[in-house]
């Protein structure tokens, strides 16, 4: 366990935790659903990515590397889809937006429910 490896794991780990922490604050503080959704998907992508890379660096064995790569691929694929699905169903169910929203792109688009 060379010190470089240790420092790198610590750095990555702290970055990951930082993102999760900020996202959590975002979820609580942000006014309406759609904004919170942005924050939520950050934990799944950046937060977990940081921690996973830390794990990768920390163990470094052949097996762990393959697993981490697959998981990262899986995460980066599913997180946006999850967020998309929730956004879609929220909009369809008529969850109203934050009154002071400036841009409203979906005015003209009607989604077939």
């Amino acid at each position: 366990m060379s010190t470089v490896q240790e420092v790198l794991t610590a750095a990555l780990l702290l970055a990951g935790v930082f993102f999760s922490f900020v996202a959590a604050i975002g979820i609580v503080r942000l006014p309406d659903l759609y904004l919170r959704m942005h924050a939520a998907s950050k934990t799944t992508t950046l937060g977990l990515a940081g921690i996973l890379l830390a794990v990768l660096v920390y163990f470094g064995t052949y097996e762990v590397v393959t697993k981490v790569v697959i998981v990262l691929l899986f995460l980066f694929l599913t997180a946006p889809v999850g967020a998309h699905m929730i956004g879609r169903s929220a909009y369809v169910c008529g969850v109203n937006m934050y009154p002071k929203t400036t841009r409203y792109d979906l005015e003209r688009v009607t989604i077939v429910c």
Partner: protein
Amino acid sequence: MSSLILRTVARLLLPILVLLSLFLLLRGHNLPGGGFVGGLVCAAAIILQMVAYDTATARRMLRGSPWLLLPLGLGLALLSGLAALLWGQPFMTSRFVSVPLPGGGALDLGLPTVFDLGVYFVVLGTVLLVVLNLGEE
């Protein structure tokens, strides 16, 4: 009715998930996993298809009705138990044969693994039977 993005992702994920479930099943003897967990992961994969598409496509994807899985699983489990009788040992005694792997290691396949496969199918069959029928509208 469901969104296109979800469908494409679901179709893409199916192979990965089934691979994961078999991976969990086969290594169950030495590392966390086993028939039960494998079965559940595979069921989750099928359910993902059901959520993405609809029950009919999920059922078609199975290419056989979940009904087949139950007797298959129980049969396998029973056979693996009865097989021990062939060698004159009491019911359920396990026998092993080690398969040399290309990578040099040796994989111990044996009756318990067959039993585990039986458990895998029964679990899969049960969950699917219940969820697919519930989903049927």
